[in-house]
């Protein structure tokens, strides 16, 4: 009896030791790189760094709300970026997800060439963005103007610049969504489809009343992640233009990336804002996007189509 109790105690102890040791490093990493990092965003946002004149290093001072005021000013001066991000979100949600769900339906029904189309749709996820961006850039800047006898490339003309960027984003966006939608559609009970067909349902009705409700949770996820990433979406501008995307086509995701990659706690030049201002801007944008994302998710879950 005593030996058994001892054995149970030993088992409990060894499980606890293993668990503690196993959790230690991942939790430490989490504390530093998630909790402290995000806490540091607040610290940075309320600080200002000034280089010591004639000496090494910098002085850190409490900046009050000056970085936040600068952040609001940046947002005010760059409303075009918010507009661009919103247009891309609406465009990719309405057209991108619609097309992806049609394509997925075709592949799920295993019509002619569905295996080939599945591979082709997935290719932009496999081949680097750098490759597609360069090839696309040359096609629209060199090949199309040459053969259509245009004065300038589609990305050099103000009127065609943004639609071309939108097209590029749509063009390389399929892949993961098609794979996930097809996966969700393959979960549909064949008996449901068969009985619907006996009732005289055509393919469009099957798509709308059976397949769409089945993939709707996945659609919600894409809409919510799209909304959550509205201020981090770079619209592939860095691959297309490097640091030189014009203001008319920029997004906040791109702006933040360019600023972060060139700046420091003390801004190296007037073209870039300091890390403190970037942090304040990030916090303001997070405060804007969080309730929108959360609210949209709740609304879609409440009013979206249901499988039953």
């Amino acid at each position, binding site marked *: 009896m005593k030996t058994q109790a001892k054995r149970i105690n030993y088992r409990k102890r*060894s499980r*606890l030791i*293993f668990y503690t040791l196993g959790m230690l490093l991942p939790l430490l*990493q*989490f504390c530093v*790189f*998630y909790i*402290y990092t995000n806490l*540091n*965003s607040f610290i940075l946002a309320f600080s200002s760094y000034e280089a010591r004149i004639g000496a*090494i*290093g*910098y002085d850190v001072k409490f900046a009050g709300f000056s970085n936040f005021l600068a952040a609001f000013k940046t947002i005010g001066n760059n409303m075009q970026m918010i507009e661009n991000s919103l247009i891309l979100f609406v465009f990719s949600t309405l057209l991108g997800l619609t*097309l992806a769900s049609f*394509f997925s339906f*075709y592949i799920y029904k295993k019509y*002619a060439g569905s295996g*080939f189309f*599945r591979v*082709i749709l*997935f*290719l932009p996820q*496999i*081949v*680097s963005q*750098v*490759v597609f961006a*360069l*090839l696309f850039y040359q096609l629209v800047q*060199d090949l199309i103007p*040459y*053969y259509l006898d245009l004065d300038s490339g589609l990305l050099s003309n103000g009127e065609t610049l943004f639609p071309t960027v939108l097209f590029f984003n749509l063009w390389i966006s399929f892949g993961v969504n098609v794979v*996930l939608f097809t*996966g969700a559609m393959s979960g549909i009970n064949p008996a449901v489809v068969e009985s619907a067909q006996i009732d005289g349902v*055509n*393919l469009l009705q099957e798509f709308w009343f059976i397949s769409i409700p089945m993939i709707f*949770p996945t659609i919600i996820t894409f809409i919510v992640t799209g*909304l959550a990433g509205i*201020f*981090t979406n770079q619209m592939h501008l860095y*691959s297309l*233009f*490097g*640091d*030189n995307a014009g203001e008319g086509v920029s997004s*906040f995701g791109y702006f*933040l*990336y360019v600023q*972060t*990659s060139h700046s420091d*706690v*003390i801004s190296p030049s007037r073209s870039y804002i300091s890390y403190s201002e*970037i*942090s304040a*801007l990030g*916090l303001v944008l*997070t405060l804007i*996007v*969080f309730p929108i*994302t959360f609210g949209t998710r709740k609304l879609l879950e409440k009013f979206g189509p249901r499988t039953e």
Partner: protein
Amino acid sequence: MEKTKKKKNIANIIFITLICTLLVAYAMTIVFTLGWGLLTSLKSRNDYMLLNNRLGFPSFKYSEKEFFHLINYQLVIDSFEFEKTARFYSGGVLVKHEAQINIWVLILNTVVYAGAGCFLHAIVPCFVAYLCVKYPFKLSGVVYSGCLIIMMIPIVGGSTSEIAVLRSIGLYDTWFGYFIQKFNFTGMYFFVFYAFFQGVPNSYTEAAEVDGASQGMIFLRVILPLTVKMLGTIMLLNFVQLWNDYQVPLLYLPTHPTLAYGVYYMVGGATSGGGTLSELPIRVAGCMLLALPILVAFIFLKNKLMGNVSLGGLKE
């Protein structure tokens, strides 16, 4: 009755033909773009620019070396020699990192970046999910809820603070810093593994315990073999993503460029502005150099990459 059936058939044909037309059009653009890229990479400057052979097959007269001896590819490989410098504040001191880059350094960096990254980003969520499911201590519930909350909060501009932290502790632009960053269990894969371990019966581990196996042995010899397939798929997905990624190394590892970063650096973004390689066929050859290995791998592993993913889990 017959009329309704006929109507239904016509509607079906129109619907499917429309989707098929769109798919064919899309496939043509992708195949054309990649095919055009491949052909252009085998042309000489004279062939492409002076003779305006933009669309055609490389001319054997003007592109003999480029076509038969892959001279453009050779030029790109030779051009992969550059110096990278990064200056930043580390704990109040201005630090300078320098590196001399060539093709071998790029390949080595890519192997370390994609290899270690894909391994860590799969094994750590797997191990923590296992602990959370099979060791039902209070902390496990807290960790699970924490992961859920993190997924719901969209943080904008967090990389700035992360870089500042890495710089202040001297880990910025170092491999060790990168490994620690990748030692992260949060994210979608945690939930994928969590769902998987919930389906693994406790009797497996209990039987091993009765046989006298230690906790570590149970994980290594009993649990890990069960997850090999899932782990492999996740590693593969991570590997492809990391192989193609140039933005994260550019931000966090500026003097440790990977192949994708190197190609991006050499072609200067898609714009012709900042790149070292000014001639289009050579720049396209640089891109093809990055794309071809992963395309070849994709041909063999496409079913693994596309077949096993579904939101919230992996299909067995």
